Every structure is written in structure tokens, then in C-alpha cells.
């Protein structure tokens, strides 16, 4: 059966789809992985995949905005954030294994699967509302699924750093959907979000240190009662 030869747009779309699939898989990994350090690596990988998708889409849409987004994303999330976490938190926190999670791992994975399937169904009416060209149809459901999975990570984790990474993954996923929906977004917005994330990481890292000094643990899931006495 003769097939039309694949054009470069086909290739870009397919590679973007591959980045999307890997992005979704990494989001699942963040839900289930035990090692804190492994979670940080997965987050970096997720950010790299987001940047890949941005660069591919910039080539597809012929717009330099997304190119800038990709570079900015690599600089802040793949380099600065891991570096800041490493500096702000000492080894004992950083290489810790999370022993207990709110849900055990198979349960968490099944919940994550249900959320991902739900995201695909939820994105259907949205896709019908916006112009449905191929990159949007790919990125929006994956971004939405990543958003929900990031939320699940934040809920299901008891250790401070993976919990923070869940929040950051939510931001990543929102961007993943956003780069396809609004490729011409003003650069100021993207720069401000990037700095926002940096500040968030910094604040949470400092907070984690404070919690750790006070209570001797970073398992913030166990901190359920408020203590009034400031001297502890």
C-alpha cells in the first residue's frame, strides 16, 4: 500500500507526541518513586521534556516565543531549582528514602491511572471549544493529566521535598498545556512565572529547614497538630 512520505511537520508532531508520552510517564513516576533524590531527577527530566516540547512546537509554529520559553525552562528548572534544593537542604534530607506514603504504591498508581483517564475525558469538551489542531489535542489532555497527577503527588506524599515537587509538577503540566494553547503568550508572563517558581522553591526550602530544626523531621505529613508555644 503506497503511503505519502512523512513531512517534517509530521516528524515534529510525532516527536512532540513522544515528549508528551514520556512527560505523562514521568508524572506517574513522581507519584510512585520512593527516593527523594530520584524524585528530583524525575522532576528535572519532566522539565527537560517540557522544554523539548516547547522547542519542537516553536519549530512547528515558527515562533520565537516558545523558543525563549524552552531556554528559560531549562535554565530555571533543570539547573537552578535542583541546585537551590541541594544548597538549601542538607544531605540528610536530600538522600532520604520516604518510608511511608499516604497510599501504598499500587493503590497510588491505580488512582493515578483513573485520574489520567479522567483527564482525557475532561479535556474533550475543552478541545471541542478551542480550535482543535493537532498539538493542542495532544498537549492539553497530557497537561491536564499531569496537573491532576501532580495534585495526587502533593496529597499522597508525607516528605517535604517530594510534596514540593508535586506542586512544581503541577506548574510544569499547566505550562505543557499552555505552550500549545497560547504559543504567542507575552514573554513577561513566562519570565514572571519562572521567577515565581524560583521564589516558591526558595520559600519552601527555607520553611523545610525551619521545620526540620524545630521538629527533627521533614515528614510534614505527620505534623497534624498546631503548637501554640513558640519556644516549643
Amino acid at each position, binding site marked *: 500500500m503506497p503511503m505519502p512520505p512523512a513531512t517534517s511537520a509530521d516528524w515534529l508532531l*510525532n516527536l512532540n507526541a*513522544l515528549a508528551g*508520552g*514520556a512527560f*505523562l*510517564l514521568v508524572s*506517574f513516576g513522581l507519584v*510512585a518513586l520512593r527516593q527523594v533524590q530520584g524524585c528530583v531527577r524525575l522532576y528535572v527530566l519532566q522539565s527537560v521534556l517540557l522544554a523539548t516540547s516547547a522547542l519542537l512546537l516553536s519549530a512547528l509554529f515558527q515562533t520565537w516565543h516558545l523558543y525563549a520559553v524552552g531556554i528559560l525552562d531549562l535554565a530555571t528548572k533543570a539547573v537552578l531549582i535542583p541546585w537551590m534544593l541541594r544548597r538549601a537542604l542538607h544531605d540528610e534530607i536530600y538522600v532520604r528514602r520516604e518510608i511511608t506514603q499516604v497510599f501504598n*504504591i499500587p493503590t497510588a498508581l491505580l488512582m493515578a491511572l483513573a485520574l489520567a483517564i479522567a483527564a*482525557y475525558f475532561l479535556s474533550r469538551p475543552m478541545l471541542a471549544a478551542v480550535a482543535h489542531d493537532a498539538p493542542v489535542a495532544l498537549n492539553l489532555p497530557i497537561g491536564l493529566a499531569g496537573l491532576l497527577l501532580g495534585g495526587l503527588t502533593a496529597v499522597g506524599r508525607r516528605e517535604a521535598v517530594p510534596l514540593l515537587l508535586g506542586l512544581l509538577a503541577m506548574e510544569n503540566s499547566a505550562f505543557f498545556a499552555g505552550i500549545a494553547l497560547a504559543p504567542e503568550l507575552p514573554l513577561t508572563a513566562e519570565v514572571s512565572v519562572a521567577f515565581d517558581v524560583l521564589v516558591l522553591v526558595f520559600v519552601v526550602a527555607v520553611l523545610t529547614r525551619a521545620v526540620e530544626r524545630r521538629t527533627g523531621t521533614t515528614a510534614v505529613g505527620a505534623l497534624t497538630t498546631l503548637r501554640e508555644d513558640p519556644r516549643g
Partner: protein
Amino acid sequence: MGRHLLFNLIQVAVVLAFAPLVAGVLARLKEIVQSRRGPSVFQPYRDLRKLFHKDEVVSDRSSWIFRFTPYLVFVTPLLVTLLIPVLTDYPLFFAFMGDMLGGGFILALGGFFATLAAVDTGNPYGPVGASRTRMVGFLAEPVFMIVFFTVSFVAGSTIPYIVQQAWVTPLANFFAPSHVLLLLAFLMLILAEGGRIPVDNPTGHFELAMIDESKALEYSGRGMALMKWGGYMKLFVLMCIYLNVLVAPWGLAHEQTLAAVLLAIPLILFKIFCFLLVLVVIESSLAKLRLFRITEFLGAAFVSAVVAMISRLFAF
């Protein structure tokens, strides 16, 4: 038609002849990675020859199942070989006798009888291994189903000869996310089903830690040889399905001539060698998982398969 039958039999002969070699090469590569020299790549042939010449001891407390199982374990991979593309990219004589699901059932039949035979003898380690195999099996089953159905849905068929073309025409399809994720899921399945390292240690001799090995503990002589050979062939067949149907359907014979089919033999062996390199890296860099962590390993395979499915089928 007669030629297709001949090619089909050549496929069976190839699997029969080269499966021990693949096992030998794998063992040798592992030894080299561990900076040892290791036995010759032909060692499995010598082992088989030795075992065939030895006397067989069968417990008088065992039933017909124990005696019948080695033949079944030996024959089932060969039956599957009739159904799958090993050397050619066009369907052969028996290709439409059964689809991928049928092949899966035939392989499962051998596994089922091996489990029964392990329980049959009354050896304390047999049932332990048997129940563990069943645990791995029932965790792997849903992944198998999702992989097969996604693949078949994309190709519009469950016959492996037709499926193999769907992912490479046009070539850009190869990088479709569902395809890559399915490859990942199926690779994890091969590791689990073949009893390879993150799930089971095939070279371990400690009975309490065994999963797959313990089922053959009671066999000796000819029965042992058949069980071993069957195991080699099962791995070979799984690799053929993985490589020829899912990963790289290139290098298969296209012309309907004997020369083309014979030329395809070194090509498939080369592909398997490349895959063995990957397998050796996996086996040398990972530790065996604790038994209750296998759930998480196969859970990851399941997630990857389902993500592959939804990214393909639910796409807008």
C-alpha cells in the same frame, strides 16, 4: 503453498537450533561484564547433550503430569513459532491458525503444566516456586492483554504478521508515544516472564529465593534437558515477538525464495544479539527485587501500557 510450509518448518528449526546459543551468548556476555571469562557460548549445547545421555529419575509418588510436562514445555514454544514472524515478513502456512492471543495461551499452557508438575512431586520448594510464578503471572496478565489489544487496535488485526507493518508505515509512526511506551511495557514483561534479573535471578542456586528455577528442581536426565531447552526457546520466541513484531520489523525476508529466507537467519540473530546487549546492561545494573516489590515493577509496566493505550485511543 508447499514452499510456505517449508519456510514455516525452517523457522521452527531455527528456533530449535539457535535458542541454546542465545542463552550461551547471554551468559557469556554477563560474565564478561563482571570481568570474568565465563564458559563457552556453546556450553548450553554441551549441557543438553550431557543431560540427554544421563539416566532419568522419576519419583514413584508423582503422577502422569510430572512425566508429561517436559514434552509440553518443549513443544509449546515450537507451536508458537509456527504463528509468529521469525524470518519472513509475509504470512506463512500456519500464520492464520492463531493470533497473538492464541500464541500467548499456548505459552501459558506450558507454564500452567510446569506449575502443576512442581506441585506434583511433593518437593517442598516446588509449590513455593509455583505459587510465586502464579503471582508474577497474574500480575503480568493484564499488562499482556492491554499491550496486545492496543497493538491490535492500531493495526486493525491480531495476526502478528499484519501488526508488524503498522508501526513503521510511515516511519514517523515508530516514535508515536503509544509505540514507545508499549515497547517499554513489553520489555518489562519479557523480564518478568523470562525470569530475568529484576524479577528473578536465573543463575541463583538458593532454593528459597527461586521463582522460575524451582519448578524444574525435581527433573533429571532427559526431562531436565527438555525443560531447559523449552525455557531457552520460550525466551527466544518472546524476543522474536518483541523484535520482529514490535521493535524492528526490518531485515525479514521479503521475497519468497529460499535464499532470502536463509539470509534472514543471520539478520535475526544479529538483532537478538543487539537485544542481548541491552538485556545484559539491565541485568548487570539492577539488583533482584524483593518478592513483594515485584508488584510495583509490574505495576509500572501496567501503568506504561495503559498510558500507551490512552494516549492512542482517547486522543481527540
